[in-house]
C-alpha cells in the first residue's frame, strides 16, 4: 500500500538554495543587511556604553566616592553627633568632612564677580581613595594651603585669570595654586552652578561664608578598616548617628547615578528599538518583493512536489541568515556608536569609561535584531502558501483575489493575522526586557503598533489623495512632473510603507527637536520683565538693611526687592503621628528632618492660594504649604503639623495650600508660617530682584565689594547651564533618533533597489522614445522629491501632534514652529533624493538594446 509519508526538503538542501539565491541578488540584499545593522548598531552602542560605564563605576567605586562611605546632609553636625562619630575611630574608621556651597569670586583688576562652586576639604585626608590631578602637576597637600585655592580651568577662562593670580572670595584673597585636571568624587556633586574652587576649611572659616543656616551641603567621607569593622556595620552605625543623612557606600556605586543610568539606558534602548522595528519592516518589505519576483520559481518548485513547508524552510533560513549577518555588521558599527557616546555626552559625563565590547549587550542586540527580523518577516513568508503551481502556466492566476470580499481575504490570511499578534507580543516582550519593565514593554508595543498603523494609514490616504489630485490635473501638469508623480504608484514601489518608515524617523527626530526648543523657550520665557532675574542668597539679618540701601543707591527701590527669611527646622509630627512613623509618598523620610521654614503675613508675590485661606495675624498658629509638598505629605487644610526649629516646638494648623510660580523669591519655599512664630529663630535672608541686564555687572560689583559673603545668582547664567544640559541630552536622543531616519532612508533605498529592473526598463524605453539623460533624471528626481516631501509632511504632522501631547503633560506651552517644520520637510526631501539616487546607481547609463534583449 502506498504511504502518505513524504520526506521534507532537507535543511542542507534548503540552505544551499537559500545561499545561492542570496548570492544572485547581492546588491538587493545589501540594503536588507543594512536595515538590520542600523538598529543593532544603535542598540549595541547604547547598551555597550551603559555596561562599560557601569563597570567603570564598579571598579572605580571607592575613588569615585573618595571614601568607603559617604554621609551627606544639609546641616552641620551637632556636638553630640561629633562625639559619636569620633567614637567610631576606635574601630579603625577615619573621617573627613567635605563642604560644598556656592559663593562669589573675583580676581584683582576685574571686579565683576563670578558665581563659583566652593568645595571645602582637608587636604591632609581628602581624598581617601583616588587622586586629585593638578596642573602644574603636584600633590594637593602641597598646593592647597590656608592661603591658596585650586580651581577649574573654566574659572580661569571666565575671569581671564592665570595660575598665580589672586582670587577674592568672601572678602579675602587667595592665590590660585593650580588647575584641577581631575577630581575623583566630582560626580557626587552633580551639575554645579559655577566653576569649581577648592579651598581648606581654615580658609573658608576666615571668609565668614559658612554660617548657621547657610545653604551648604556637608558630606562626611569615611575610610573603613574592614579588618576591624565591616562596611555594613559601619553604615548601620552611621545611619543611627545621622538619621537625616543620605548614606551611600562604595558597594552601591552611586545609586542615584546607576538608577538614572538604568532608566536612561531603558529609554534610549526603546528609541533604538524603533530604528530596529523600522529596519525589520524594511527586511519584510524586501522579502515580500523578493518572493513576488520569484512566484514563477516557487510555482515550479510546487509543481514538482515541494510543499509550502519545504519552501518556507528556504526563506526562513534566508531571513535568519540576513538577520544574523546584518546583526553582526550592526555589532561592529555599534562599537563606533559606543565610541561616539562620550563625545556626545560631553561634560555631562563624570567619568570616561574604557570602551569595550561586552558580550552581554552584543548578544542582546544581536538576538533582538534576529528575533525582530524573523518576527516581521513571518507574514510575507507565510504568503508562499498561497502560491499555486498553476502559476507556471498562467501568470495572472492570482488576480482573481481582487473580486473576493475583504472578509474572505482576511479569513484566508488568518495565519498572517496570527503572525501579527505574535509580532506585537514579541515586540512587547523585547521592549519589556530592554526597559526592565513589563508595563513599559506593553505600552511601548501597543503605542508603537498603533502609531505605525496610523502613520501607515495616513501615508496611504495621502498617496490616494495625491493620486486623485493627479487624475484630475495630470494633463495640465508639465509632463516630467506628471510622469514623476505617476511613478510613485509604480507596481512594487511600496510607497506607503516607505512613507510611513521615513515619516516615523522624521517624527522621532523632529519631536525631540520641538520639545527641546519649547523647553528652552519656556525657560527663557520665565524671565519676563516683571519677574526677578537676580537672586541673592545667604544674607544675614545684620546685612539685610545694608543690602537694601545699597540696592536703593543703585536705583533699585525696595518695592522691587523681594525678600524671604529662611529658618532651618524639622517636622516632629503630622496629625499626631511622629515623623518616624509617617507614611509619605515620594518624599524621602530623612528630608522631614531637614526642612526650610519661612514666614509671610500676607500672600507673597507669585503665590496663589489653591485651598483654604491665608491668616490675618502674625501670631496665629497656622501654616501654608506648597501644593507639591502637601500632596506628598498628605496635608490638607486643617491638618496639624508640629515643627521643631532650634529647641522650640511649633505646633501649627494647615490654613492654606498654595501654588508658587517659578519666577519669584517664594518659588522654592515649602512651609510658610506667620511671622510671630519664627522671628526669634536664627534666620538667613534670600532676596530676589529684577535688574536690567545693563545694571547687573555694576550691581554685582558694588554688592561684592561691601558684602562679599552674599552670593548673587544671575538667572541668565543658570538658564545657560540648564540649557546646556537640555541641549546635551537632546543631542544624545537625536543621535539615536537619527538611526530611525537612517532606517527609513535604507527602506527607501531597498524599495528603489527592489524595483531596479522595472526602473531600468523604464529608462531604456524612455531612451528609445527619445528622452535625454536630463529628462530621465528629472522624472526620477521628482518621484524621490515628492516621496521625501510627503514623508516629511507625515512625520512633521505626527511630530507636532506628539510633542504637543507630551509638552502639555509637562505643562510647557507648545508653539507650532513653521520654520523648523518646513526645514524638516525639505530636509527629508533632500535625503530622499540623495538616497534614491544612491540606490539607482548606474541606472542612467544602461544600454537599451541589452535590456530589451533580456525580455
Amino acid at each position, binding site marked *: 500500500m502506498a504511504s502518505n509519508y513524504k520526506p521534507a526538503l532537507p535543511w542542507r538542501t534548503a540552505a544551499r538554495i537559500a545561499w545561492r539565491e542570496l548570492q544572485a541578488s547581492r546588491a538587493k540584499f545589501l540594503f536588507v543587511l543594512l536595515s538590520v545593522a542600523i538598529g543593532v548598531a544603535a542598540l549595541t552602542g547604547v547598551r555597550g556604553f551603559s555596561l562599560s560605564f557601569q563597570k567603570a563605576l564598579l571598579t572605580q567605586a571607592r575613588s569615585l566616592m573618595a571614601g568607603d562611605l559617604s554621609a551627606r546632609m544639609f546641616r552641620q553636625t551637632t556636638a553630640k553627633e561629633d562625639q559619636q562619630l569620633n567614637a567610631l575611630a576606635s574601630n579603625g574608621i577615619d573621617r573627613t568632612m567635605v563642604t560644598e556651597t556656592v559663593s562669589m569670586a573675583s580676581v584683582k583688576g576685574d571686579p565683576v564677580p563670578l558665581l563659583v562652586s566652593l568645595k571645602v576639604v582637608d587636604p591632609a585626608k581628602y581624598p581617601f581613595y583616588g587622586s586629585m590631578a593638578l596642573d602644574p602637576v603636584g600633590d594637593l597637600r602641597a598646593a592647597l594651603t590656608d592661603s591658596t585655592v585650586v580651581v577649574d580651568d573654566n574659572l580661569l577662562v571666565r575671569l581671564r585669570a592665570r595660575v598665580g593670580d589672586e582670587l577674592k572670595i568672601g572678602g579675602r584673597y587667595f592665590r590660585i595654586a593650580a588647575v584641577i585636571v581631575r577630581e575623583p568624587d566630582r560626580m557626587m556633586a552633580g551639575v554645579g552652578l559655577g566653576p569649581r574652587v577648592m579651598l581648606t576649611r581654615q580658609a573658608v572659616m576666615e571668609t565668614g561664608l559658612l554660617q548657621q543656616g547657610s545653604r551648604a551641603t556637608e558630606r562626611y567621607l569615611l575610610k573603613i578598616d574592614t579588618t576591624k569593622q565591616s562596611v555594613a556595620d559601619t553604615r548601620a552605625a552611621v545611619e543611627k548617628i545621622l538619621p537625616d543623612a543620605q548614606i551611600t557606600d562604595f558597594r552601591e556605586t552611586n545609586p542615584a547615578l546607576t538608577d538614572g543610568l538604568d532608566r536612561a539606558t531603558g529609554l534610549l534602548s526603546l528609541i533604538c528599538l524603533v530604528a530596529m522595528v523600522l529596519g525589520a519592516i524594511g527586511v519584510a518589505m524586501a522579502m515580500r518583493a523578493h518572493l513576488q519576483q520569484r512566484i514563477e520559481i516557487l510555482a515550479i518548485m510546487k509543481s514538482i512536489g515541494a510543499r509550502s513547508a519545504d519552501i518556507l524552510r528556504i526563506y526562513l533560513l534566508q531571513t535568519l541568515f540576513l538577520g544574523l549577518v546584518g546583526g553582526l555588521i550592526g555589532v561592529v558599527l555599534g562599537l563606533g556608536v559606543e565610541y561616539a557616546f562620550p563625545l556626545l555626552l560631553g561634560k555631562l559625563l563624570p567619568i570616561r569609561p574604557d570602551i569595550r565590547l561586552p558580550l552581554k549587550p552584543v548578544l542582546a542586540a544581536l538576538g533582538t535584531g534576529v528575533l525582530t527580523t524573523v518576527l516581521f518577516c513571518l507574514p510575507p513568508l507565510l504568503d508562499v502558501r498561497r502560491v499555486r503551481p498553476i502559476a507556471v502556466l498562467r501568470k495572472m492566476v492570482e488576480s482573481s483575489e481582487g473580486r473576493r470580499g475583504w472578509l474572505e481575504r482576511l479569513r484566508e490570511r488568518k495565519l498572517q493575522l496570527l503572525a501579527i499578534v505574535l509580532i506585537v507580543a514579541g515586540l512587547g516582550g523585547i521592549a519589556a526586557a530592554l526597559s526592565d519593565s513589563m508595563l513599559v514593554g506593553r505600552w511601548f508595543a501597543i503605542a508603537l503598533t498603533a502609531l505605525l498603523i496610523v502613520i501607515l494609514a495616513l501615508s496611504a490616504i495621502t498617496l490616494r489623495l495625491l493620486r486623485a489630485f493627479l487624475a484630475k490635473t495630470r494633463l495640465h501638469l508639465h509632463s516630467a512632473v506628471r510622469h514623476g508623480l505617476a511613478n510613485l504608484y509604480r507596481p512594487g514601489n511600496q510607497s506607503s510603507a516607505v512613507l510611513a518608515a521615513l515619516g516615523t524617523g522624521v517624527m522621532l527626530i523632529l519631536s525631540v527637536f520641538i520639545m527641546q526648543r519649547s523647553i528652552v523657550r519656556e525657560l527663557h520665557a520665565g524671565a519676563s520683565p516683571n519677574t526677578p532675574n537676580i537672586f541673592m542668597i545667604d544674607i544675614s539679618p545684620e546685612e539685610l538693611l545694608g543690602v537694601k540701601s545699597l540696592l536703593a543707591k543703585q536705583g533699585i527701590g525696595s518695592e522691587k526687592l523681594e525678600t524671604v527669611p529662611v529658618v532651618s527646622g524639622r517636622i516632629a509630627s503630622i496629625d499626631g503621628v511622629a515623623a518616624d512613623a509617617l507614611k509619605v509618598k515620594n518624599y524621602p523620610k530623612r528630608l522631614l528632618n531637614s526642612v526650610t521654614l519661612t514666614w509671610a503675613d500676607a500672600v507673597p508675590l507669585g503665590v496663589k492660594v489653591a485651598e483654604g485661606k491665608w491668616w490675618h495675624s502674625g501670631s496665629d498658629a497656622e501654616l501654608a504649604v506648597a501644593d507639591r509638598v502637601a500632596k506628598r505629605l498628605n496635608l490638607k487644610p486643617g491638618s496639624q503639623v508640629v515643627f521643631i526649629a532650634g529647641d522650640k516646638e511649633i505646633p501649627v494648623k494647615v490654613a492654606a495650600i498654595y501654588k508658587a510660580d517659578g519666577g519669584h523669591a517664594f518659588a522654592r519655599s515649602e512651609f510658610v508660617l506667620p511671622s510671630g512664630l519664627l522671628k526669634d529663630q536664627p534666620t538667613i535672608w534670600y532676596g530676589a530682584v529684577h535688574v536690567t541686564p545693563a545694571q547687573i555687572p555694576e550691581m554685582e560689583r558694588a554688592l561684592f565689594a561691601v558684602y562679599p559673603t552674599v552670593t548673587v545668582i544671575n538667572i541668565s547664567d543658570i538658564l545657560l547651564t540648564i540649557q546646556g544640559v537640555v541641549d546635551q541630552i537632546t543631542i544624545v536622543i537625536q543621535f539615536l533618533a537619527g538611526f530611525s531616519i537612517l532606517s527609513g532612508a535604507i527602506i527607501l533605498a531597498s524599495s528603489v533597489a527592489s524595483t531596479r529592473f522595472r526602473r531600468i526598463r523604464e529608462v531604456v524605453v524612455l*531612451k*528609445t*522614445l*527619445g528622452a*535625454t*539623460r536630463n529628462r530621465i533624471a528629472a522624472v526620477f528626481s521628482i518621484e524621490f522629491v515628492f516621496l521625501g516631501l510627503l514623508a516629511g509632511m507625515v512625520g512633521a504632522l505626527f511630530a507636532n501632534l506628539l510633542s504637543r501631547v507630551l509638552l502639555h503633560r509637562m505643562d510647557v506651552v507648545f508653539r507650532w514652529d513653521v520654520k523648523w517644520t518646513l526645514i524638516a520637510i525639505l530636509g527629508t526631501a533632500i535625503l530622499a533624493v540623495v538616497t534614491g539616487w544612491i540606490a539607482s546607481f548606474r541606472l542612467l547609463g544602461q544600454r537599451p*538594446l541589452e535590456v530589451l534583449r533580456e525580455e
Partner: protein
Amino acid sequence: MIEVRGLKKSIRNGTRTVEILRGIDLLIPQGQFVAIMGASGSGKSTLLGLLAGLDSPTEGEVLLDGVAISGLEEDRLAEVRGKKIGFVFQSYQLIPTLTAFENVLLPHELNAVGDGKKKAAALLETVGLKERMHHYPVQLSGGEQQRVALARAFVVEPPIVLADEPTGNLDSTNGQHVLELLTDRQRESGTTLVMVTHDPQIAARADRQIHLRDGLVVADELVAERV
C-alpha cells in the same frame, strides 16, 4: 532613407567573443516596408537595435537620411531617435504608471513642439481605443496594449518605424488586427517600416524580405519581384 555600411557587431561572452553581425550592407529607401527574417540568433534584433541607435556597432556605419548616427553622443542620439524613429516592441513596453493616452503623448512631449493631445487622441481613436484612452496598461489586454504602442510609434510622424516581432505575444486575431493597423498606417503616412518577424505570412505582406543567417544577409529580395 536608411543606409547601412559594413555593419559588424560582436560581444564578449565570458572569455569568448561572439560575432553577431559579420558585415551587413543595406539601403532602404523612404516608404519601403522591409521584413527581416531569420532563425533565432541570426542577428535580426541586433540589426534592428543598431538601426535605431540603441547600441553602437563594433564596425561600420548606420546613416539615417545621410546622417551617421553611430558616433553621436547619447543625448544627440536620443534626439535623432525621438524625431526620426518610432519603435514597436514585442512586449509593448508601455510605461505602467502612465495612462494609454499619456503613453501615446509621451514621445510628442519629449521631441516635438506644440500640443500633441489632439494627435494622440486621434491616433488612439484610429487604433480603436477611444473609450479606453484613460486606462492604465495593466487594465488593457495584450492586443490593446500593442495598439497603444502602435499609436505611440506614430505620434511624432517619424519617417522610420522599427518593429521587433510586434505580433509575437498576441493571438492570431489580435495579431492580425495589429498588423493591419501597422501596415495601413505605414502606407497612409509613407513611413519606412522595418519589421523583424518569424512569420512568413506577415513577411509576405512586406515590399522586401531580408534573410539573415549567422550575422550575414543571405537573401534580399523584393516581394513583387518574387511574385
